[in-house]
């Protein structure tokens, strides 16, 4: 039960966190130089975005949940089980954001869900 609760929390926090980070990086724009100073500059600019802080905080919370999960379960179980985020993200897009989800995406989500169920059964 606790594993299910923590995986659910991890999935929600990490999915929302990734959305925040993605949004912040799109605001920053494409990175062209990989010199350390340029990368530090990008990181500095990214962390001046509220979206980055929101995303970062949620990802930090998901990290703590991951630590707890890894103390209980095999990593080869925990990481595939977190793929449930694809299903949760799509359900959220459909029912909260009212996005149109086409058949291919539903099939993909179904496969991911079956996969997570198989990983769960193979625990």
């Amino acid at each position, binding site marked *: 039960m606790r594993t299910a609760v923590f995986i659910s929390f991890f999935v929600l926090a990490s999915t929302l966190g990734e959305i925040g980070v993605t949004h912040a990086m799109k605001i920053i724009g494409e990175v062209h130089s990989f010199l350390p100073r340029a990368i530090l500059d990008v990181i500095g600019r990214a962390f001046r975005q509220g979206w980055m802080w929101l995303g970062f905080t949620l990802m930090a919370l998901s990290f703590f949940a991951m630590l707890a999960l890894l103390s209980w379960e095999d990593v080869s179980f925990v990481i595939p089980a977190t793929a449930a985020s*694809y299903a949760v993200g799509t359900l959220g897009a459909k029912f909260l954001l009212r996005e149109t989800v*086409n058949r291919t*995406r539903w099939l*993909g989500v179904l496969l991911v869900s079956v996969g*997570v169920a198989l990983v769960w059964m193979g625990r």
Partner: protein
Amino acid sequence: MTAHKTLQPKTVGMLALMLIAGSTGDILLSKGVKQIGELQHWTPDVFLPFLVQVLTNGTVWLGISFLIVCFISYMLLLSWADYSFVMPASALTYVLVPVLARIVLNESVTPLRWAGVSCICLGVVLVGLTPPSTTTAHPDSAAGQS
């Protein structure tokens, strides 16, 4: 990622760095946390000492370092590549982690778990094949680059 553009070497390199650093980080994190033991309760008097032990463990910090490299490469990759490309491509982690867990941590990965991992990868690829925007009818909205 669109069909009319070839995959740039910097995208492949950054993606490889992200996948290898992320998988290695997860393995090291697991190894470090397992050295400490199981978190029995989610109450502050149990969790805080556990967190202190975790954050003073060298293997955990090595894992965190790899995960920071993964996070930075993920951030950089997202600055030019579409999320709809990065998302399915990152599904390779679901294969890499069980493989590394089997080799490095001697974890027993059951055939059912492998079947699940295969299903997940196939599903993520299918999700990635769909256009990023399905709400608006503008064909330009699906155009991206990687």
